[in-house]
């Protein structure tokens, strides 16, 4: 007797349904005005909640989060690209890499409790700049780890090639290494964006509740037991990361071929 296999199409549909189910529930909650236990379906609708939510604090929190995450991602990627190159060429590469891994040795909340003491002394606690700097500790370290293994001797050789063909040091980076590195840079940008975007504990501790990013807002709505607003905010929360993943996929597609 042969074992029956689940058809591939059905299996894929089940996976997609399992992934989409929580978001479907959120979508329903975001337009529900009444969905009391044990009713199987919404008892009342409130389609205007999205408009109300986006006209209020949610819009400013979203804008703040987008700006913060983009800034952290750009700085982490640029810093990681440059530092990773220096680390890759360095004779004490392992020691530097070990240091770059340090921020990930403990939980972000524990580390942020340690950081906040210094941030308070520096006058950065409770400010947007302070939160950005604290997030950079993780983002930059991630960028360094990401690019240290990326700057292979082969990639460095591209820069050398440009120099001997008559290019300056800047041209070696811009015309030699960058076209090969940009797909990886896009990937790092997306990942550090996500790292910053979903940061909650660190933002709350270092921001001291005064920097109201979108994750902080979501948890506030949950704490206020406002399921509808929390659902709207949660759906907004997954929007930019999905856009970033889509963009990243496109960039990777048009990126590297085999340079031989």
């Amino acid at each position, binding site marked *: 007797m042969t074992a029956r296999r689940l058809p591939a199409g059905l299996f894929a549909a089940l996976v997609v349904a399992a992934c989409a189910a929580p978001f479907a529930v959120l979508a329903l909650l975001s337009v529900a005005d009444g969905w009391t236990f044990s009713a199987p379906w919404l008892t009342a609708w409130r389609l205007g909640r999205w408009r109300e939510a986006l006209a209020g604090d949610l819009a400013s929190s979203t804008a703040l989060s987008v700006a913060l995450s983009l800034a952290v991602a750009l700085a982490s990627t640029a810093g990681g690209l440059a530092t990773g190159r220096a680390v890759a060429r360095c004779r004490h590469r392992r020691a530097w890499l070990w240091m770059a891994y340090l921020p990930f040795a403990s939980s972000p909340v524990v580390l942020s409790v340690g950081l906040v003491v210094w941030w308070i002394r520096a006058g950065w606690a409770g400010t947007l700049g302070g939160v950005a700097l604290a997030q950079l500790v993780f983002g930059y370290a991630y960028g360094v780890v990401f690019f240290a293994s990326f700057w292979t001797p082969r990639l460095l*050789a591209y820069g*050398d*090639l440009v120099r001997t*063909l008559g290019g300056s040091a800047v041209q070696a980076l811009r015309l030699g290494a960058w076209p090969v590195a940009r797909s990886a840079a896009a990937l790092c940008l997306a990942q550090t964006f996500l790292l910053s975007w979903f940061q909650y504990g660190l933002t709350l501790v270092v921001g001291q509740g005064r920097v109201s990013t979108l994750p902080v807002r979501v948890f506030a709505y949950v704490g206020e037991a406002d399921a509808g607003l929390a659902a709207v905010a949660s759906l907004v929360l997954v929007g930019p990361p999905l856009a970033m993943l889509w963009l990243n996929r496109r960039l990777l597609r048009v990126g590297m071929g085999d340079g031989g």
Partner: protein
Amino acid sequence: MSFLSVTGLTRRFGAERVLDGATLAVDEGETLAVLGRSGSGKTTLLRIVAGLDTADPGGPGQAAGSVVLAGRALDGLPPEARGAVYLSQEPLLFPHLDVRGNVGFGLRVQGVPRAEADARVDAMLRELDLAPHAAKRADQLSGGQRQRVAFGRALAVRPRLLLLDEPFGALDAGTRTQMQGLFQRVARAHGITALFVTHDLKEALVVGDRFARIDAGRLVTYATRAAFAADAATGVADEVAFWTSLGEDAP
């Protein structure tokens, strides 16, 4: 005076002396084939001549090494000011450019006017039989074609000196033989002066006009092909003996 003169280059990495007083001379339009095993210091020699690495400074009672090309001392000059193009075993084609873009890359970097650059690229594509592949990207080419593109990219900028670091090392035997022939033909046609390092004895004999051997950082140059062949350390005699024992001609 020789077109390229390298005198007393020494390079240490920590306690290890990778290059030990390397001295050589090459006349204009000649290819010096440098035979050496992996780790013998041949890549370091080329990188120092290219300006991608620096030789150790001289110490008490010891002069610093020097590189003179076409009567001009290159010491201290950045790679882009030396007129020496370095070709490695990997063709390192730019994945975002097609064959035409790759061949013309150096001209673009040097700011050569568009019309002149196009004409030079066209001529190079024809010369290297790459014209039918001009619109292809690196991943659509064979290993030999990629290396031809890299060769064309180097030649297009009309270098004073070509530094070849086992450029055909990754190719299969047949393609490698083809590329050696191509190199000979093009080098002669353009009067190229070249330092060609290889671990392959046959390749050294095919491409070289003059010969040298490097072992543990020490460079030995030979006045003639016969002197190179006569030195037991080059392995020519062993090779000949092997083929003779099979009753065949040496390759």
